[in-house]
């Protein structure tokens, strides 16, 4: 499978809908401090079914919803969509097979997250399994957070071993 597109709306600083096309090869993401680059990685992990708010620099999962800026009021929803070309990916029961799967996670303030694949509501577990079957997912070692290299260097040997377990 390949992830071909990332879409955000109301997720952290991305209050207005944005669309990031992910082509083959190496795509660079640049911009000043605080402009939202790391938020993009968090959006990818969140849409893949991440369960730890702390690992997304949030006290509570609702903290990923746009909380307002000087000219904008806070939002009530946040949504992230991962578009995948599904060659070989087996969709969960209830979702018809298709060439393209749009995996959406949407959170509503005080009401939790809803997951959909091509519009059909599914469980968080279905989304997590879909990505796990494709050797990726919210805890994939290939998703290297800012400062994670330093954490790996400073980690106790027992904790470092967990990196290996992802490969096993």
């Amino acid at each position, binding site marked *: 499978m390949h992830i071909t597109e990332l879409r955000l709306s109301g997720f952290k600083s991305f209050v207005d809908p944005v669309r990031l096309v992910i082509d083959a090869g190496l795509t660079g993401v*640049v911009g000043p401090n605080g402009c939202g680059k790391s938020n993009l990685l968090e959006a990818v992990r969140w849409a893949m079914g991440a369960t730890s708010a702390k690992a997304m620099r949030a006290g509570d999962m609702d903290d990923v919803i746009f909380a307002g*800026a000087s000219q904008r009021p806070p939002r009530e929803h946040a949504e992230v969509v991962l578009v995948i070309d599904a060659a070989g990916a087996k969709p969960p029961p209830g979702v018809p097979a298709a060439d393209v799967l749009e995996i959406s996670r949407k959170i509503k303030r005080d009401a939790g997250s809803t997951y959909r694949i091509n519009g059909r509501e599914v469980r968080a577990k279905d989304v997590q399994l879909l990505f796990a079957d494709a050797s990726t997912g919210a805890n994939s070692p290939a998703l290297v957070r800012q400062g994670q290299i330093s954490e790996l260097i400073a980690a*106790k040997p027992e904790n470092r071993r967990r990196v290996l377990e*992802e490969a096993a």
Partner: protein
Amino acid sequence: GRQRLMAAFEIVNGHFAQLFATLFEGGQAELRLTESDDPLAAGLEIFACPPGKRLSTLSLMSGGEQALTATALIFAVFLANPAPICVLDEVDAPLDDANVDRFCRMLDEMRRLTDTRFLTITHNPVTMSRMDRLFGVTMAERGVSQIVAVDLQRATELAAE
């Protein structure tokens, strides 16, 4: 459980030794699983020797050497089970120009060996100039992020300035 971990360890160690030698243009490195009654509570130790220096644990190396060595480990794990998407958030921050160049050449090699799509978040002009395309994240309106395409040619000129 234990057998799978040992099998993964051998594969990752093989990739790690090779990637280290490529990134440091010589020297040697190896992973070791430290002793423990419970093999699943064993620790992963990293020993490395840049060319011309002495073998030591990761903790005795310089900041940039540690980062490059840890990056070799991340990619060794990656090669053992390549993911369709890899996002690297500012991993090049502690590297000097020569090491950023080697890091980029390793990314080229990963692109050649796998089908993986890479997103590289960076402040480094050398890294920017080695990407296939660039997207800029901006906050024209304070607190509100947007994405714009950045002209790679122009960014490469800026990097060369």
